[in-house]
C-alpha cells in the first residue's frame, strides 16, 4: 500500500510539472502554487517512506510500464525508504524556497523550469524504488538529463553551457560504467531484475569487476575524486535551489546505488573491495576540503565542501564493507549507520547552505566572496538560519554534523580488530585524515560565514541588500529545523535506521544506555553522547556568562574611533578577505594546487592582485584524455569529405563488399 502511495506521489510530481506548461510564463502560478504543492507532496512522500521504514517491511509491485514485455519492477524496502525520506524531506524545503526564488527573466521560463524540476524529483524517486536494471537506468538517465537542463537555465552564457556539457559528459561516462556493471551482475541469466541479480552466483573476479564498475559509475555521479570535476563547475552554474537539490539529494542517489549494488545485489561482500571506496573516500575528503579552503566563489566553495562530504560517506561505505566482509557485523552496522546518518545530515545542511547563498545572490547579485560582507545586518533571517547550517556542517555539537562524524570515528576505532595484517594498522591512519578533514571543514565554514555575513560590507551596493521573502524563509527554516532535530534526537533516528542495517548487514547497532536522551551506540565500549545535555550545558554557560557580564558590567558606553595602529583611516576593504583567510592552507599545501598569480610591482600606482587556482588533475588526467579523443575524432573526420559522390561511393563500396561476401559464402 505504501509503495502505491509513493508511486502516486511521484506521478503527482510529474502532473505538477506538466501543469507548469499551462502558463509557462506565469510566475504567480508556478511560484505561489505549483512549487509549494510540490513541497507538500515531498512531505507526504517523506511521511509514507518513514512509515515504511518504521514498519521495516518489503513491498513489491510490477507495473506494466515501458517497453512491451519489460514491465517495471518496483520495490520499497528499508534502504529505499531512508533515501525516500531524505528526498521528500529535503526537497520539500527546497521546493518551498524555490517557490519564492524563481522569477521571470533571462533563461528558461518558469513553467518549463517547473516541469524540469518536478521531473527531476520524480526521476530521483523512481531511481530509489526501481527493482530492475531497466527502470533504474531509465530513471537514472531522466535524472541526469532533467538536471542538465536545470543546470543550463541561464543557457545564454557560454561558461554555463560548457559547465553543463561537462556535467552531461561525466554523467554519461558514469552511466556507461553502470550499464556494464549491471551487465556483469546478471551473471549469465540475462534477467535484469534485481531479484535475479541477488540470486545470481558470480565468480569472485566478476563480482569484483561489477563492484569496481559500480564504484566508478556511482562515484562519477557522487563526485568522488578524481571524477569530481563537474561538481565545482555545475553547482555555481545552476540556480541555487537546483544546486541544493543536486548536492543535497542527487548525490545521495549515487550513494544509494552504491549501497544497493555493494551490499544488496552482490550478496555478502568481500572485505578487500571496501578498500577502494575507503581510500578514494579519504582522498576525496582531503582533496575537497583543501580546495574548498582556497575558493573565492561561495557556491564553488560549497561544491568542494560537497565533494568532501561525499568523501566522508564513501569512507563510511568502505569501512562497512571491510568490516562486513571480515565478519564484524556489529561494527559494520555502526559504520553503515554513520554513512546513512551523514547522508541525511548532508542533505539538510548542504541544501540549507546552498539556498542561503541563493538568497545572498538574489539580494546582492554577487557570488564573489571578495565583494560581500556584513550581510547579517541586512539579511538577519538568512544569516541566522545559514548559521545553523554552517555550524552543523562544521561538525559542532549539538548539531547533526557532529553525530555522524562521531559515529564514523567510533567505527574507525575498531579497525585494529581486523584479522588482516597491515590493513588493521593502516586504516586507523585514515581516521587521522577524517579528523583533519573535519577540522579543516570547520576552518572553511568560518571563512564562508565570516566573509559573507560578518564584518563590514565590502561594497557600497550591499547597503541595498534585502532579506528573503516569506516562502524562502519557510523553506530555510524547515531545513534548519531538520538540522537541529537530527542533531538533538540521534537515538530516535538510529532506531529508525536499524531496519536498514538489519536488512543489509543482518545486525543492528545496540543501545547500551537505558536513557532515551543518551546515545551509547558502541558495542563493548563505554562511550556515550547526550546532545540535549550538551545543548543544556552550552546554553547554561552562555546564559550565565551573559547574565554575569550584565551584572558586573559598568554600563558606561564610550564610543570612539577604533585604534588603527597609526595607519590612517580603516576601510571595510581592509578586512580579512577570502584569499587572505585561505592563504595559510594555500601555502602549506602548495603542491596540490596549480596557482597562477599576478603580483603588483612595488612602484605600481594602480596595484592589481590576481590569483587563479586550478586543479592539477586537469593537466594530469583530463586534458590528455580530451586531447586523445579530439585527435581520434579528427582522424575519423577525414571520412567526412562533404562530397556527395564520395558518400555515394561509400555506400556503393559497402554494397559491393556485402554482395561479394554473400557470393563467397
Amino acid at each position, binding site marked *: 500500500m505504501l509503495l502505491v502511495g509513493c508511486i502516486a506521489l511521484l506521478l503527482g510530481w510529474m502532473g505538477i510539472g506538466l501543469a507548469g506548461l499551462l502558463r509557462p510564463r506565469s510566475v504567480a502560478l508556478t511560484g505561489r502554487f505549483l512549487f509549494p504543492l510540490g513541497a507538500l507532496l515531498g512531505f507526504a512522500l517523506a511521511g509514507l517512506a518513514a512509515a515504511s521504514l518504521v514498519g521495516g517491511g518489503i513491498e513489491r509491485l510490477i507495473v506494466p510500464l515501458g517497453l512491451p514485455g519489460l514491465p517495471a519492477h518496483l520495490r520499497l524496502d528499508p534502504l529505499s525508504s531512508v533515501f525516500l525520506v531524505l528526498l521528500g524531506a529535503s526537497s520539500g524545503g527546497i521546493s518551498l524556497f524555490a517557490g519564492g526564488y524563481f522569477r521571470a527573466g533571462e533563461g528558461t521560463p518558469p513553467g518549463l523550469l517547473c516541469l524540469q524540476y518536478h521531473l527531476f524529483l520524480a526521476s530521483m524517486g523512481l531511481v530509489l524504488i526501481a527493482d530492475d536494471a531497466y527502470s533504474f537506468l531509465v530513471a537514472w538517465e531522466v535524472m541526469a538529463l532533467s538536471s542538465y537542463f536545470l543546470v543550463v537555465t541561464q543557457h545564454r552564457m557560454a561558461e554555463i553551457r560548457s559547465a553543463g556539457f561537462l556535467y552531461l559528459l561525466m554523467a554519461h561516462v558514469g552511466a556507461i560504467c553502470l550499464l556494464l556493471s549491471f551487465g556483469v551482475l546478471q551473471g549469465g541469466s540475462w534477467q535484469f531484475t534485481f531479484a535475479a541479480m541477488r540470486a545470481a552466483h558470480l565468480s569472485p573476479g566478476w563480482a569484483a569487476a561489477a563492484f569496481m564498475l559500480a564504484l566508478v559509475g556511482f562515484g562519477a555521479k557522487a563526485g568522488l575524486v578524481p571524477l569530481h570535476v563537474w561538481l565545482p563547475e555545475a553547482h555555481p552554474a545552476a540556480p541555487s535551489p537546483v544546486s541544493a537539490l543536486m548536492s543535497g539529494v542527487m548525490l545521495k542517489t549515487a550513494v544509494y546505488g552504491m549501497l544497493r549494488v555493494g551490499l544488496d545485489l552482490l550478496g555478502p561482500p568481500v572485505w578487500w573491495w571496501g578498500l577502494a571506496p575507503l581510500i578514494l573516500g579519504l582522498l576525496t575528503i582531503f582533496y575537497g576540503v583543501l580546495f574548498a579552503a582556497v575558493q573565492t566563489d561561495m557556491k564553488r566553495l560549497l561544491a568542494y565542501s560537497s565533494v568532501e562530504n561525499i568523501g566522508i560517506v564513501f569512507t563510511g561505505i568502505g569501512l562497512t564493507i571491510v568490516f562486513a566482509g571480515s565478519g564484524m557485523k556489529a561494527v559494520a552496522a555502526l559504520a553503515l549507520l554513520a554513512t546513512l546518518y551523514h547522508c541525511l545530515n548532508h542533505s539538510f545542511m548542504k541544501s540549507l547552505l546552498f539556498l542561503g547563498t541563493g538568497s545572498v545572490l538574489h539580494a546582492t547579485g554577487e557570488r564573489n566572496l571578495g565583494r560581500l560582507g556584513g550581510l547579517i545586518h541586512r539579511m538577519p533571517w538568512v544569516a541566522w538560519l545559514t548559521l545553523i547550517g554552517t555550524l552543523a556542517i562544521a561538525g559542532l555539537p549539538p548539531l547533526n554534523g557532529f553525530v555522524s562524524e562521531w559515529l564514523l570515528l567510533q567505527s574507525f576505532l575498531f579497525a585494529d580488530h581486523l584479522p588482516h595484517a597491515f590493513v588493521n594498522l593502516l586504516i586507523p591512519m585514515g581516521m587521522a585524515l577524517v579528523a583533519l578533514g573535519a577540522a579543516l571543514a570547520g576552518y572553511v565554514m568560518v571563512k564562508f560565514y565570516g566573509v559573507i555575513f560578518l564584518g563590514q560590507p565590502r561594497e557600497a551596493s550591499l547597503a541595498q541588500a534585502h532579506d528573503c521573502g516569506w516562502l524562502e524563509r519557510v523553506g530555510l527554516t524547515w531545513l534548519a529545523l531538520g538540522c537541529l532535530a537530527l542533531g538533538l534526537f540521534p537515538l530516535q533516528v538510529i532506531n529508525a535506521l536499524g531496519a536498514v542495517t538489519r536488512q543489509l548487514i543482518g545486525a543492528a547497532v545496540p543501545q547500551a544506555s537505558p536513557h532515551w536522551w543518551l546515545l551509547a551506540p558502541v558495542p563493548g565500549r563505554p562511550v556515550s553522547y547526550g546532545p540535549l545535555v550538551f545543548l543544556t550545558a552550552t546554553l547554561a554557560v552562555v546564559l550565565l556568562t551573559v547574565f554575569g557580564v550584565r551584572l558586573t558590567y559598568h554600563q558606561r558606553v564610550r564610543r570612539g574611533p577604533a585604534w588603527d595602529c597609526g595607519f590612517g583611516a580603516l576601510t571595510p576593504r581592509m578586512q580579512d578577505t577570502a584569499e587572505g583567510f585561505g592563504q595559510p592552507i594555500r601555502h602549506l599545501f602548495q603542491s596540490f594546487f596549480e596557482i597562477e598569480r599576478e603580483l603588483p610591482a612595488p612602484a605600481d600606482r594602480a596595484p592589481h592582485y590576481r590569483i587563479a587556482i586550478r586543479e592539477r588533475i586537469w593537466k594530469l588526467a583530463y586534458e590528455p584524455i580530451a586531447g586523445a579523443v579530439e585527435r581520434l575524432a579528427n582522424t575519423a573526420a577525414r571520412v567526412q569529405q562533404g562530397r*556527395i559522390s564520395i558518400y*555515394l561511393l561509400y555506400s556503393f563500396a559497402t554494397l559491393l563488399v556485402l554482395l561479394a561476401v554473400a557470393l563467397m559464402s
Partner: protein
Amino acid sequence: MTHLSLYQQLLDACAALLLLLSFAMLSQRRVVTLVNLYAVQGAVLAAATLLLAWRTGEGHLYLSAALTLALKVAFLPWLLHRLIRRLEVYWDTEPLLNVSGTMLAGLVIVVFAFALAQPITRLTSTATRSAIGIAVSVVLLAFLMMITRRKAMSQVVGFLSMENGVFFGAMSASYGMPMVVELGVALDVLVAVLVLGVFFFQIRERFESLDLHHLESLKEHE
C-alpha cells in the same frame, strides 16, 4: 543448346534492352536525353511486365504494368523535363571519371553482377533466368552513375533508374512484389522526386547553381 520459346526470347530481349539503356545513360551527358532514356527504360520495363502478366495470367501484374507506364514513362519524365526547363540545366559538366573509364568500370560491374546472380538463377524455376543478373547490373550501374555525376539532376535520374532495376529484379525473381509493396514503392519514388525538386530550387537559390560540389562548403571545418 536449349530451345527458347518466343516468350522467353522476347523477355530476354527486354532485359538486354534495359542493360543497354543503362549503359547509354551512363555515357550520356545531356540531361534532357538522360530523362528521355529513362522514359524509354520505363517503357521497356512496362513491356516486360506486360509480357510476364500475359504469360502467367497474374492480374496484379497488368496493374503494375499500367502503373509503370503512367508513372515512369509519362509523369516522372514530364516532371523532370519541366524541372530542367525551369532550372535551365541542360548539360551536366564533365563527369568525375571520363566516359570510357566509366564504361570499363560498368563492364566489370556487370560481370560481377552476373557472377552474383548465378546461385540465385540456379535455384529459381521462373522463366526469367538471365534477368536477375541484369536487374542487379542495372541497379549497380545506376549507382555508378550517381557517383560519377556532378549535377543533382543526373543523380535523381540515376536514383530513379536504380529503382527500375530493383523493380525488374523483383518481377523476374518472383513475378513481382505484393501489390501493397509495389504501390508503396511507387508512391515513395513519386514523393522522393517531388521533394528533390523542391530541394533543387533551394540549392539553386542558395548557391546559384545546381552543381553539387558547392555542398562541400557545408562540411564542418576544424
